Structures are given as structure tokens and as C-alpha cells.
């Protein structure tokens, strides 16, 4: 019996199956129909979304929840351009993702044909790599390379643009056995022992060390090594926003996250340490001041990153090592000796007691109260996604994370509309976990139509809408730095989110009073037949503190509402 010759689309889908893909988040259109046709006979589950941006954030959430690339399939032209925000979001936060776009047929490319767009060109700045497929016989190689590239070294999104004539023509190459052709791909370097020794020597003698863990720790799965290093050295650990979950926050050495809205005790430790050791963080401008000399002045700096371009990008460290965090730490741990940090730990503990994160239960419903209670009721075990804004910062502050892949938020791009679809993807990736999306009233409205997707697949996601009836984070800046001249931040016209959810067939709850928080959240957490929306009508004017104004240094932190007028921030945003 001779094997049936596959067309490009069929071999594409077969290749995805071979790579273990279980879900595709997609939206069809003319140029992608052959590929959707191939899915018809496939074991892969197609998740039909309501907007291509939603598909990208779902794939992103799936990838962050599993460590495996999420896969998106869209049509040409507007279908493809709708993925740009999702590509940026994944690229900024080093998330592995594969976006496959239908494209017009090759003979008409560049002739303004219907729904033709230069997708390769439009997306080039926001992908790790991309392909325009010209020959169906290249498909097996390109798919293999795409998975390899997106997940190897520093992860990132890869885009494959597939013209319709290519997906419809026969592909005769062997899909089970093809070679990659990537002469320019720099494989992650094997960590240099010399560099690791230098790290060990630089750490030696430090009396006030601080480990700064970033997203790289989660990507590398280096959490156990971080714990071992911290305990051996006796060093407190802070994390970036994206590093949360890389070190248990209930551990006595944890000082929480640092930066613009990080804990006061983390930022105090940053201001006073004599050694800061970044493991998989890229010294983002939300944790470092505009004048970089003001960052940890006097402290020695150590840096581990898998991407050589991150070393010396923001600051020049005293010692650095390029490579995978886990591998480097495994070699480093036996080389270091416990440090004499008794006084330093006493001080950080004292600061933890002196400047705790806190809120008042009385005086109206507070977002912090809702989040704090969610943490308690789920025993800090849930997988939590957020949107972008004040509620995101409060979640970072009041939900205590303890394991990697438990915390999913858009950091680098700060993409509103991310949180809810990301939770859908995360729930597909972690079907056994309780998944909670914490969204603002503004951001939720950017992708709320994915309620259909969640309802259809009966995903038991809890969607908590922190409704302050404002674009709260921007309102906070206007209040603090622009004389309270509120411009374009009032969300008057918000829908009744309970009715809205019900109209999609989702369960819905409302919380208005502090006294109802526990009771309603319990009900919502007990409901597992499908998604439910929890509409929390919180007070309108609350602000996030502590706050390090943009561009300022840790010691300029404002711990609570200021009584005097503040200078407009001069730094970045």
C-alpha cells in the first residue's frame, strides 16, 4: 500500500502532533482554511477563540503554566495583525509560543491582494524568529526548528507565515526524520567554571548579601537550587515581579518583590545591601533607577543570565556568568561558604515587622481584602493570572506564591486584556489546578468576549473583576503627579458584570461589602462546573503603596499616601 501524499497543511498538523501539541488556539479565515481542514482529522483540540489577540494570550498562559510552547493559528491580513500585541507580550517576557498564519498565495504577494499583509515585516521586531514558507517540502524542517528555537536558550515567540498555495500543495519530505539547518543559532553556552569561581569569590566576605531572582529562575526550573543557595549563604531573597514563585514567599529569608510597587522591606534591603546577585533577571527599569549609579550604591553586583546580551546591558557587574541558571547554581553551591549575615538578617526581619504590607478592612470594600482572602481560602496554592494595573500590583503584594508556574502576569509589555485569556490557556495547561484571573474593570473589557470560549469548554476559572470604576493605575499617577487632573480615566458606562457574565452562560457573583468577602469567595471557589465571574465593587480612590516613582532609587520610596506635592517622575514610565 502506498502512503497517501500529504499536502502542506496536513504535514504541518502532523508535525505539530509529533511535537506533542494538544491544543491550538485559533480563528479561521480564507487563507487558513486548508490548515483548519487538516485539523478536522487530527487529534489536536482546536480551541476556537473570539479574537486573535485572545488566542495569543491563551497560548502565552498555556506556555507559562506548562513550560511548553503554546500554539496559535490565524488567517492572513487582519487575523495576523491581531496577533501583534500577543507576540510583543510573549517576546518581552521570554515566553515560548508558535504563531502560524495563513497567507495569500505566493504569486500575488506584494500586489495588494485581498487580506495580504507583510506579516513577516510587521512582526519582525517582536518575534524571536520567523518564517515565510515558500516550499511545502520545507514545512517539517521549519516546524522542527520553530519548536527548537522558541524553547531553547532564552525562550520567545516564533511566527510561521504559510501561503495558501503552499499549504495546499503536496509535501513529499519525510516528516518524521528531517534535519534542522540553523548554522547561526547560538546554543546556550556551557557555563564557564572560571566565571563561576569568580562569582563565588565575589560573594565571599559579603555581610549584607541579597539574592535577586527573576523570571529566568522559573524558566530554568532552578527554584530548588535557589533555595539551597539562599539557605547555605544565609542570604535574604527578593524577586522581580516575574520571578515570584521562584522562592517560597512564606520562607523566612524571603523579602517579597522589589521595585516600583515592591515591598518596603525589599526596597530597603536593595538600598542597604553590600552584594546584589541577580539570577535570571534583566535589571528592568521598574527595579533600577534612571541613574544606574544610584542602584545599590557601594554594593558588588553579580549576574547570571542565559542571554549574553543581557550582561552589561543595564549595568556592568563585578562578576557574571552566561548560561542556564540551574546549571550554574549547581556548580556554584559547593563553591560557596556560609556568610556571616546574622546582623543583616536581624535588620531585614525588623524591617519586615516595621513596614508590613497592610490595608484597612473597614471603610468600604478593598481590593487588597478580596485578594488576601482569596490567598487564604486557596491556601496560596491556586494558579493566578492578572491583568495590568493596580489590581495586578495588589495581587503581587497580597497573594503569597510558593511554586513556579503559579503566577502569570504581563510584566515587560504590561498588556491590558492579558489576564483573562491567559487564565484560559493556563487552565488548559493545568487542568487539575484552581485557576484564578484577577482583572481590572478596564482591562477585562478588552478581552471579555472570551467568556464564550471559557463557557463552551466548561473551564472552572474564577474571574475576579476588581471594579474601581477607573483606569486606576493611571488615575493614581494623575492624582499623585498631575495635581489630580483626571483625564481619560473614568470608566463611567461600565456594564453590570454579573448580568454580562450570565448572558454568556457563566455563573456570577457580586461582592459589595467587606463582610461578604469570605462567604462569596467560598461559594465561587466551590463552583466548578464552568467559569464564574466575581464582580468585586471596590472603593474608587485607593492607591498602591509602597511606590518608588519612575526613575527614582529605592531610597526614594514612598511608603504611604504622601501629604506634600510630588515631583513629576523624570525617569522612564
Amino acid at each position, binding site marked *: 500500500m502506498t502512503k497517501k501524499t500529504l499536502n502542506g497543511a496536513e504535514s504541518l498538523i502532523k508535525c505539530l502532533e509529533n511535537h506533542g501539541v494538544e491544543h491550538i488556539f485559533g480563528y479561521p479565515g480564507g487563507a487558513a482554511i486548508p490548515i483548519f481542514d487538516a485539523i478536522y482529522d487530527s487529534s489536536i483540540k482546536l480551541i476556537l477563540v473570539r479574537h486573535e489577540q485572545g488566542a495569543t494570550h491563551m497560548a502565552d498562559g498555556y506556555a507559562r503554566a506548562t513550560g511548553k510552547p503554546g500554539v496559535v493559528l490565524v488567517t492572513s491580513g487582519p487575523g495576523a495583525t491581531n496577533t501583534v500585541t500577543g507576540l510583543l507580550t510573549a517576546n518581552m517576557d521570554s515566553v515560548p509560543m508558535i504563531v502560524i498564519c495563513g497567507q495569500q498565495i505566493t504569486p500575488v504577494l506584494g500586489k495588494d491582494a485581498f487580506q495580504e499583509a507583510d506579516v513577516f515585516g510587521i512582526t519582525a521586531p517582536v518575534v524571536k524568529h520567523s518564517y515565510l514558507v515558500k516550499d511545502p517540502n520545507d514545512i517539517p524542517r521549519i516546524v522542527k526548528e520553530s519548536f527548537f528555537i522558541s524553547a531553547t536558550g532564552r525562550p520567545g515567540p516564533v511566527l510561521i507565515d504559510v501561503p495558501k498555495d503552499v499549504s495546499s500543495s503536496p509535501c513529499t519530505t519525510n516528516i518524521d526524520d528531517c534535519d534542522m539547518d540553523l*548554522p547561526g543559532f547560538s546554543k546556550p553556552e556551557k557555563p564557564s567554571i572560571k566565571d563561576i569561581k569568580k562569582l563565588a569569590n565575589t560573594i565571599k566576605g559579603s555581610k549584607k548579601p541579597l539574592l535577586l531572582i527573576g523570571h529566568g529562575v522559573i524558566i530554568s526550573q532552578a527554584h530548588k537550587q535557589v533555595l539551597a543557595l539562599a539557605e547555605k549563604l544565609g542570604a535574604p531573597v527578593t524577586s522581580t515581579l516575574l520571578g515570584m514563585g521562584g522562592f517560597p514567599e512564606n520562607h523566612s529569608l524571603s523579602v517579597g518583590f522589589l521595585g516600583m510597587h515592591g515591598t518596603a522591606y525589599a526596597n530597603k534591603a536593595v538600598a542597604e545591601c553590600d552584594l546584589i546577585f541577580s539570577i535570571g533577571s534583566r535589571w528592568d527599569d521598574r527595579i533600577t533607577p534612571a541613574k544606574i549609579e544610584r542602584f545599590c550604591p557601594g554594593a558588588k553586583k553579580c549576574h547570571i543570565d542565559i542571554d549574553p546580551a543581557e550582561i552589561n546591558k543595564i549595568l556592568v557587574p563585578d562578576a557574571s556568568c552566561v548560561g542556564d541558571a540551574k546549571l550554574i547554581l549547581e556548580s556554584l553551591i559547593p563553591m560557596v561558604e556560609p556568610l556571616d549575615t546574622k546582623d543583616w538578617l536581624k535588620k531585614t526581619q525588623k524591617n519586615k515587622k516595621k513596614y508590613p504590607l497592610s490595608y484597612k478592612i473597614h471603610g468600604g470594600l478593598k481590593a487588597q481584602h478580596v485578594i488576601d482572602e482569596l490567598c487564604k481560602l486557596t491556601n496560596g496554592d491556586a494558579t493566578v493570572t492578572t491583568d495590568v494595573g493596580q489590581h495586578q500590583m495588589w495581587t503581587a503584594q497580597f497573594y503569597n506564591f510558593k511554586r513556579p508556574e503559579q503566577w502569570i502576569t504581563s510584566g515587560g509589555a504590561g498588556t491590558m486584556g492579558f489576564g483573562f485569556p491567559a487564565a484560559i490557556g493556563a487552565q488548559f495547561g493545568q487542568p487539575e489546578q484552581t485557576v484564578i484571573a484577577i482583572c481590572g474593570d478596564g482591562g477585562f473589557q478588552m478581552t471579555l468576549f472570551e467568556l464564550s470560549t471559557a463557557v463552551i469548554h466548561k473551564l472552572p476559572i474564577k474571574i475576579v473583576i476588581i471594579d474601581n470604576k477607573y483606569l486606576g493605575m493611571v488615575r493614581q499617577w494623575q492624582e499623585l503627579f498631575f495635581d489630580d487632573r483626571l483625564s481619560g480615566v473614568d470608566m463611567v458606562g461600565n456594564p453590570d458584570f454579573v448580568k454580562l457574565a450570565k448572558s454568556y452562560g457563566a455563573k456570577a457573583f457580586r461582592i459589595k461589602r467587606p463582610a461578604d468577602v469570605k462567604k462569596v469567595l467560598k461559594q465561587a471557589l466551590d463552583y466548578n462546573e464552568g467559569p464564574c465571574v466575581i464582580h468585586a465593587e471596590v472603593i474608587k480612590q485607593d492607591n498602591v503603596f509602597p511606590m518608588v516613582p519612575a526613575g527614582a532609587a529605592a531610597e526614594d520610596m514612598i511608603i504611604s499616601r504622601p501629604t506634600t506635592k510630588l515631583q513629576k517622575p523624570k525617569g522612564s514610565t
Partner: protein
Amino acid sequence: MPKTSITREDSHTISLFVANKPGVLLRICLVFSRRGFNIESLVVSPAIDGRFSRMTITANGDKNVLEQIIKQCAKLIDVVHASEHDSSYSIEQEFALIKVRLKPKNRSEILQLVQHVQGESIDFSDNTLILKIVGESKKIDTCITMLEPYGILEMVRSGKMVITKGKSET
């Protein structure tokens, strides 16, 4: 120095060995333009092994930003390697075609000058002369300065090309 000079103090020459695939140049240009860098000159040609190309890029700007640009170029999947070269171990050459206004009274003076810089006159008309000059960019800059008083009508420069000396790879 004339405005046309490409050998400024903060000028850097970067050599790249890249996969000969569509889109490579776009990606490299994006690395420069995103950081506000202007590419002064760019030479691309196929390598001996036709699957690859060689590029020599000259750009001016801050040294630290340039280090970042080289690293970001090297990171691109289609770039095999990227490095800055300095003239102590590499040969840098450029090629220029210069069209000069010709007046009977200047004619012999110009031709003498051309001979002096080992240039070649490759086309004459009643009132123009096209010269070919090969050499280090500085030498070409100097020629231009010397020819300017006679009136340069047009000029094309190839941009710098770099190759390392001895056995070491460019």
C-alpha cells in the same frame, strides 16, 4: 573634513557572517534603527560557501550602545557571527567612483593628482572626468578633499569592506 567622510572618530566597522536567506538584512537593520543608529555604509556579498553572506556595516555612535548592537545582531538566528574589527589585524578597503568637473585649464592638474593617489581615470567627456579610487576610507576622504575645489559633480562609495589578516576568520 568634508561632510561625506565616513571615518569619524566614533565610527565602528562591524563584520557579520550570515545565512543567505530573505529577511536577514531586515532583521539586522531593525537592531540598528530601534536604537536610533544610522547605518553609514553597508556592503553585502555572497561568501565562498553560497549558503552564507558577508556583511560589513559602518556606523557611528556610542561604544556601549554599539556593544549592545553587536550582541543583539549575534543573537539573531540567521547570524552566524558578528564582531567589530580593528585595523591592527584586519584589512579595510573601500572603492569610490568620483565624477569631477573638467575645465581645460585644470585638466593636467587633476590628472596629476589622480596619478598621485594611484587612482584611475575611467571615463572622459568634454567637461567631466570619472575617477576610480581604491584604498582605505581615509585615503578616499583625502582625495575628495583635494578634488573638491575643482567641483565634484557626483560620487559613489562602496562603503568599507573588511577582511582579517592571516588565518583568523573574519
